[in-house]
């Protein structure tokens, strides 16, 4: 992919995918680390212990929700990349087109063949019929 000169916007898009991936993974890791740090609970503050506990609980919830969000964002990223690949994978599209055209060509030749054989059959039948007609009594 790198050896081909991609347009600017495509390059930017790919870069954004990469950054999204890194960001999400990083956010998962960081949030997890933070939760662990909170669980240790060794930090002195001016707040009262009770308030501190509440705050920690709240923070943990938010951080775990962040992890979940990052996970879903990764799923979305996967889907986006799939979409991007499908829409921009021109070699495979070309392959599909050649395959289709080949298919239609064979279909065409098949039809032609059938028509020709039909014509031949009809000609043979017509020959017989004419023979029959012209040698019949009522002409």
């Amino acid at each position: 992919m790198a050896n081909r000169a991609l347009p600017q916007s495509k390059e930017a898009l790919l870069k954004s995918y990469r950054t999204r991936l890194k960001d999400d993974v990083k956010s998962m890791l960081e949030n997890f680390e933070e939760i662990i740090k909170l669980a240790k609970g060794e930090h002195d503050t001016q707040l009262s212990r009770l308030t501190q506990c509440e705050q920690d609980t709240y923070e943990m919830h938010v951080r775990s929700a962040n992890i979940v969000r990052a996970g879903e964002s990764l799923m979305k990223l996967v889907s986006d990349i799939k979409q991007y690949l499908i829409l921009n994978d021109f070699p495979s599209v070309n392959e599909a087109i050649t395959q289709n055209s080949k298919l239609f060509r064979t279909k065409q030749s098949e039809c032609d063949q059938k028509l020709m054989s039909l014509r031949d059959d009809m000609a043979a039948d017509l020959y017989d019929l004419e023979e029959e007609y012209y040698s019949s009594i009522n002409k």
Partner: protein
Amino acid sequence: MSFNTVNISVEAPIENQIQEITYEGVEIYQPPLTLSESLAKYAQKIDFSKTSEADIKKEEALEEAKSDSDSKDAFQSSLWPWDSVRNKLRNAHQEVCVLADVLNVAKDKRYMVLDPVQQEPLETKPMVQIYARKKALGGAANVLLAGAEKLKTSQNEAARNRTTPDFHIELLRLRQNWRLKKVSNTIIGDLSYRTAGSKYLQTGTFEVTKAEEDDKPGTPPSSPLPTSGGAQPTKPSSALKVAIPSELQGVAYIEVLCQKDQEDLCSANINLLGSGAPSSNPDMHWQQKLEAAQNVLFCKELFNQLAKEAVQLQAPIPHMVVGNQIMATVLPGIQLIIALRHSTSADKKSDKQPSPSKSEHDHVLEHSLHQLLREVHHKNTHHPFPHPATGPLGPSKKRMMAGPMAADRHELLEMTKQETLLEQIVKQAQHFIMRMRTEYVLDTIAKEFKDPLISSHWNTLNSPTQSCVKINISTHGYDAVCRTPLVIHVGEKSLKCICRDGKVMNMSYEPQELRDLIFCHINQHQILAVQALAKTMGWQSLGNSNHLGSGPVEPLGNAASCLLASPTGDRIIAIRCEPQASGMQVSVAHSPRTDFFPSRLVTERKWEHLGGQFRDVRLDKMEGRNFLHKMELLMASLTSNS
């Protein structure tokens, strides 16, 4: 500084400062400061770091004195140097206001209460803290588990519903068949024939969306919005949804009718999807839906092109374009009607019926109209290769040769002419009608005439505007004796008949002319056949004439005749053949009569050799299957008698 009592007035010097002294010694003075300039100069000297009241007061007094003396406009113009002053004053004002607000809030005790800070922290047991932390961790874990569960169920769901393919697989299939691109967040597809060489302006874009899983099964099938007509209300069979613009929805086809004075001769329906129109119900598969939309687009382009040409073309009888219908005169009294029928899903049923299911459903006209536009498309994309590889792309090979071959203006003009679609289809329709007429004439004649058999063989290979029929006129049982072959080329507006003797006859589109020609040839055939038969029987042909000058005047052509003599020469048969239906007249003469009675005029028997009276033969009373058979019998009987 201790001379308090003595006031020293400080004045500016009367003379201005010298700016420059020129070489002649002329002194150029600096212009004196204007009032505003001097004000600005003074204002810049104010030092706000001075805090002593006396200083400020002194300065303020100074300023006031200055500003009072200033005129109004001078103050306006000196806004710049005053800016720093103003800013500093405003900042100070703001701070004072905020302080006042805080004091107010604290004093009112309605919004905020200031409490003294508790000095010694509340004693909490470490166990409580641990429990709290455990609980917090448990909550976080629950959130994570719920999230994971959600992802897992969605995956399982997809795995279980293998019957409904994945959105991406569907998208891949769609991509393999249609052009798609992504514009910001939406996927836009294109179903126009632009890439195939079409230059039609209307765009055929459609939008691809993901079908929602949670579509309510109870939604009414007829959605009011035209663009959401593609919504699949009940159990989406595909994970993909395409939205087609409303003008491309429904079913369209082009109807081609050949009309003869309000009576249909033939009709053809162009419908790329075949006559069985696809039901445009909303839960159609996207492939069919897109194909239908593309068909609509194609029909529209075709009709548009035809209508444009119909208006531009200058035909002897002008073409008419009314609404969705083009009327062109093909042959006198026969019109070609091309109509665009576009039915949206709503009125499909009612629209489908009135199209008359005529006996003549010509697929050839249908196909050729289709083919013509395709050809135009093909030409738009497939240019002939430029001969020097660096030459311009576009001009045809013939035109490339025009320079070296020194083509004149007329030739070049001829090159630029190209037939429009309408002209071509009109020609094809003309040929179609000509062919039909010829067929009809030949068939009716073959039906009418049993005596010489007329068999026609149509060539199986022909072009849309030219076909060829070979006609054999022969008599049953005597095919080997004589047969008259004819070849008729059926063109667009004329017929060309190549006769047995190599004569070429050109005829117009009137069927009567062909009919007359065939009649003439039937007569000729009879005369020639009789002569050929006579030769095999040993009779002599005394003479024949294809264009007999005697007898009553024929309405068409001339009567043909021949005279045959028996081997011994004593009997003569005269045959006269008229192109009219009355047909043949056969007469027999016995030259020496078997019995001779001398009369006053004819005294001797030898005079009987000069030939006698002709007596008519009543052919209809004779034995024999056909004319030649009868003649054979007649000749045989006359020969044996002698």
